[in-house]
């Protein structure tokens, strides 16, 4: 085990965390991989925004590295491949070149094309609008608003990295659009149209996952994730609130 190799193991852990792995899976994977190379002791500490690893090698060296995680991008296919690579490493402890080659292959997996994502936003917004009790026409209106939502998220996401600001501006925009559409007579239950789109915005999953983290003992990670979820919910509420204030009620 040397610094370069540890960096590679940390690369795998970092990418797993970014792609959507749970905190304890990342910790377990890194320490298992390190042990496959015969180190005496591994200490891994992971929270949602950082990974810290220290290993004591058999030669008596102590190596330590840190990663800061700034942004997430859930990609479960990448996670599956990383997981497979980690298993291979634990099983056969391959050399540095092998890991590097495999990592670059995994890094090249492309996400779905953006036009597909656009359609999927429409599908999700429409489906959940009908799911929660909207009519088919409401569903269509929600789908239109969903496309606008995706466009506004990617636009604001490009010009502004602060998630709070993005999550105020996008709901404001789509709230206004939904109000406009219903006033024109396209769709009549504005609540259902908005709920369909909120399913795309709202961090319901982060909220649930944060509680999962807390129950399973990763209290720090869970609390961080929960504060993020609450913050994002508040920003969304402010965004929608602004749109109703501006256009005079739902």
């Amino acid at each position, binding site marked *: 085990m040397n610094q370069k190799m540890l960096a590679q193991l940390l690369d795998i852990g970092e990418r797993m965390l970014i792609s959507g792995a749970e905190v304890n899976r990342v910790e377990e994977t890194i320490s298992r991989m390190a042990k496959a190379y015969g180190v005496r002791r591994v200490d891994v500490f992971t929270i949602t925004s950082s990974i810290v690893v220290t290993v004591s090698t058999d030669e008596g060296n102590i190596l330590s590295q840190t990663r800061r995680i700034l942004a997430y991008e859930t990609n479960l296919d990448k996670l599956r491949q990383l997981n497979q690579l980690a298993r291979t490493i634990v099983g056969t402890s391959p050399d540095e070149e092998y890991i590097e080659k495999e990592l670059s292959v995994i890094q090249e997996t492309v*996400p*779905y094309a953006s036009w597909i994502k656009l359609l999927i936003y429409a599908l999700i917004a429409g489906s*959940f609008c009908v*799911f929660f009790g909207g009519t088919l026409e409401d569903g269509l209106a929600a789908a239109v608003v969903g496309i606008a939502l995706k466009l506004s998220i990617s636009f604001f996401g490009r010009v502004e990295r602060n998630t709070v600001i993005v999550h105020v501006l996008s709901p404001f925009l789509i709230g206004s659009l939904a109000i406009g559409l219903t006033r024109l007579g396209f769709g009549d239950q504005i609540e259902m149209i908005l709920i369909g789109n909120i*399913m795309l915005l709202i961090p319901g999953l982060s909220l649930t996952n944060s509680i999962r983290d807390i129950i399973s003992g990763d209290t720090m990670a869970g609390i961080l994730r929960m504060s993020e979820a609450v913050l994002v*919910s508040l920003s969304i*509420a402010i965004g*929608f609130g602004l749109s109703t204030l501006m256009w005079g009620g739902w």
Partner: protein
Amino acid sequence: MIQIMTSFLGSLGFAVLFNVRGRYLLEAAFGGMLGWLCYSLLSGRLHNEYLAFLVAAMLVTGYAELMARVEKAPATTFLIAGMIPLVPGKGLYYTMRYAIGAESAGFVSQGTQTLAVAIAIAGGVMAASSIFRVIVSLQMTAKN
């Protein structure tokens, strides 16, 4: 019926957004449908919404863990999209609306309800995955 169909479509959509590929997509979406079906069958009969959410989350987790063993992919692949229809999006929305409308009584009751649903789902996931872990380690010791 329409809810079962839309829960499948919604889960499918989220599976695509999370970049699930190939046949895993349909399997993940099926998990979402299964969870909702279980919840809607139970919610009328149990007289306890939270218990229905807990059992549905347990079922989805069990399904995800099983698929993970069958397909040799992490359980998360099937779990995240499968949990989507159960996630309290509507509750969070109404909590938000009460907050905007300055109706503090509605805000508190809707907010606690939403949080309780989230806790029930998380508890269901934890319970089922713990049971699964115990079964797997029992199998391992039996083999050795």
